[in-house]
């Protein structure tokens, strides 16, 4: 199946939970990455129970704090 992650197509051989997808993508700061699936914010508490389906659009966003000092 194919999903879209931050605008790029990603091919998966099986359905993955969001927690598994974070590991598969080797995302930085895995405990603090913000995930949206089809424009819906998915809380970290739901990452293990939420599975991506073929055609889903996933966006991952990071906290960014820099800018002043």
């Amino acid at each position, binding site marked *: 199946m194919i999903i879209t992650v931050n605008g790029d197509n990603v091919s998966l051989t099986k359905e993955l939970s969001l927690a598994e997808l974070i590991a598969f993508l080797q995302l930085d*700061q895995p*405990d*603090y990455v913000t995930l*949206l699936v089809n424009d819906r914010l998915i809380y970290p508490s739901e990452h293990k129970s939420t599975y991506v389906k073929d055609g889903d659009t996933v966006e991952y*966003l990071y*906290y*960014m704090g*820099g*800018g*002043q000092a």
Partner: protein
Amino acid sequence: MSQERIAAAAKEIRLSNPQLERYSRHIILNEVGGSGQKKLLASRVLIIGAGGLGAPAAMYLAAAGVGEIGLADYDTVDLSNLQRQIIHHTQDVGKPKAISGQETIQSMNPDVQVQTYREPVRADNIKDIIRHREYDFIIDGTDNFPAKFLINDACVMLQKPFSHAGIIRFQGQTMTYLPGQGPCYRCVFRDMPPKDAIPTCRQAGVLGVMGGIIGTIQAAEALKYILGVGQLLNGFLLTFDARTMTFRKVRINQRENCAICGIQPSITALKDYEQPACDIRQQQAQTFQGGAV
């Protein structure tokens, strides 16, 4: 409503011949014209953090003729700031950033009045700072999450539009909050990250131009809001990666259960979060408290 105040105040302004020349490239724009330039001259923008993001934002807003700019920053200019904080110069090292920024702005454009606030924003002063001149638009140029969440919560409570931004390494992000017109920062990033969970620019570094790119976008959002032109970044988080020169505009929905802008907000009072700001040097913070609020 800020835009109504701006429109009313703009009607009292007459452009002088030097102003007609200075702002001629604005005035010939159909979307600006003489009436738009008067709106800019009648507007008030508060910039919290006169550093990597706030420096370019302040300079472009000053050049554009925003009539009043507030600079809130308790820190002093450090040599390591000069790689990106272009509002400050070598001879400014050791000087309060708010004062250094004020001097640069005044040398750029005498039309601009500058208010300085030389103290950290806190739960007990941020509303007073915003209300001091009833700022029309606020720019978050801070570098720490306690300040970012505080600015978001204060602006939602006061129903003030603001621009959030953050930068690190080769990346940046920004979004705009408009009261009643889309999500706030907490709709995306619900809670403060734990202390030291997210690296800071001091720890991870930042390419100098990142503040210029993202801070200038924040300035553009302020100008568009004042002028009532175009589509702002409300409802979107714009991300930028300089390594690939990739901009991404991610749609963000307002959350009905958001703790501050949702239907039944659970946050009803501002609070100072315990996580210390990454670069707050307590000694300096104490030294420069009691500024011009």
